[in-house]
């Protein structure tokens, strides 16, 4: 009886968003009377950072400080339409919609400022610090706040913008079946080192090393946060989580947190991450978003590492001690595959 070390590798080519009958998201941007900007979305922030990233994108596009941008994702009854926060689509689809809405609002902002400064809007630029100035003449300027006040109380105009980003429906070619359901892919490669106890069948993940290519990391700390948490969930899916019944029948399956297995804070795995930034052409400022891909490659890498450690090929999840022990018995014991 022994503990066997195993190493497994997996890589992933991951589509951003989906395409059944088209994949749209909308955004609306408007200024308040004091020159702050509100981004209205129906895209829900589940903790993945939708509000932070769309706020950054709106700030960048409008040319105003990020502190002056607010994101409201409150209500799909009253907000503009969004397909939803799933399929790793949020940053890409919603971010693009926000860029379009903010671009229109920026144009109106510059036109209102142009009227106050008695210049052409094409000659104006923002400094990102709350001011609008004549290009090449920073002294000739007006604040965003004063522009908003003038627009709404004097000029009688709104500073607002509408944006939609749509990946249109992709029909299958009748001859070849070929279609283009996705415009943007993210990528990752991941190595798992683990130990398998051939007496108990217990797997202990020792270390994860990964490289993720997610376009530009629009908010590097949020990307890292998602990658760490997502990989943990991948470990959990691979080794622990199931709603399938225990013995003797389904009545004995897990029905609450007491019986639903998940790794806890004592099972934290060292995870070294390299984020490769390769901005995508059709993505907002190049950012694709990590999304579900954080968890996915962990599962096949663990399955491969278990095979590498003891020669048991598990093709159903989770890879429980029972499955490993049954495999070991079938094989007549552990068959370490060794390093290649």
């Amino acid at each position: 009886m022994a503990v066997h070390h195993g190493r497994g590798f997996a890589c992933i080519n991951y589509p951003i968003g989906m395409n059944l009958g088209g994949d749209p998201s909308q955004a609306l941007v408007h200024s308040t009377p004091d020159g702050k900007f509100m981004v209205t979305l129906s895209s829900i922030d589940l903790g993945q950072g939708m509000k932070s990233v769309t706020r950054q994108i709106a700030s960048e596009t409008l040319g105003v400080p990020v502190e002056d941008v607010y994101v409201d994702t409150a209500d799909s009854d009253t907000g503009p339409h969004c397909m939803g926060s799933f399929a790793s689509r949020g940053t890409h689809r919603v971010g693009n919609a926000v860029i379009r809405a903010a671009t229109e609002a920026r144009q109106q902002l510059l036109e209102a400022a142009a009227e106050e400064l008695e210049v052409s809007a094409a000659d104006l630029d923002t400094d990102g610090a709350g001011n609008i100035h004549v290009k090449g003449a920073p002294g000739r300027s007006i604040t965003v706040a004063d522009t908003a006040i003038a627009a709404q109380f004097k000029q009688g105009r709104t500073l607002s913008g509408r944006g939609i980003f749509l990946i249109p429906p992709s029909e299958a070619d009748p001859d070849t079946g070929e279609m283009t359901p996705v415009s943007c892919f993210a990528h990752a490669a991941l190595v798992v080192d683990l130990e398998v106890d051939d007496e108990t069948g217990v797997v202990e993940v020792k270390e994860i090393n990964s490289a993720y290519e997610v376009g530009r990391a629009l908010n590097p700390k949020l990307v890292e946060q998602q990658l760490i948490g997502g990989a943990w969930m991948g470990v959990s899916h691979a080794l622990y989580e199931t709603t399938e019944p225990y013995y003797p029948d389904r009545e004995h399956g897990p029905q609450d947190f007491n019986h639903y297995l998940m790794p806890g804070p004592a099972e934290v795995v060292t995870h070294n991450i390299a984020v490769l930034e390769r901005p995508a052409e059709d993505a907002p400022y190049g950012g694709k978003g990590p999304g579900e891909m954080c968890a996915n490659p962990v599962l096949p890498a663990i399955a491969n590492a278990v095979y590498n450690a003891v020669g048991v090929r598990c093709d159903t999840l989770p890879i429980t001690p029972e499955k490993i022990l049954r495999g070991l018995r079938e094989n007549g014991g552990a068959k370490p595959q060794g390093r290649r």
Partner: protein
Amino acid sequence: MEKTALNFTLNGAETGVFVDAGANLLDVLRRGVGDQTPKYGCGQGSCGACSVLIDGELHLSCLTLAETVAGKSVETTAGLAGGPELHALQKAFIDGFAAQCGYCTPGMLMAARALLDSNPNPSRDDVAEAISGNICRCTGYEPIIDAILAAASGSGRRFG
């Protein structure tokens, strides 16, 4: 159903509320008093989202009979900050990106507070054990453990 008066201290303030016989502390805090920082997760003591301190000790408020806190001191996440000044743990959680959806965060903060009150210089294993009764679905625990260690070492604040 007849209600009885319950008096206790909540985050340092004298608090009185009428409670149903057999009411649990979590319901009384959230619905009776209006402190919604303790969260309802599982209602059976498995997830830790409802964690509060009673006379300085960590308890699961969903499993605590409300009437048992009569005359005692109850502390929740709502009392962590001192006015506008955040608690070192709150700063460390923010700086260390130790929350995603945030649902487990109040329970994590109370478990961490209980730990640091009794052990100001915990090891990594001490921290893991202290939050082992708290389930987090988003973070993978590592950022939370790092944040608690940062708060303990006084290195929690990087800006602001």
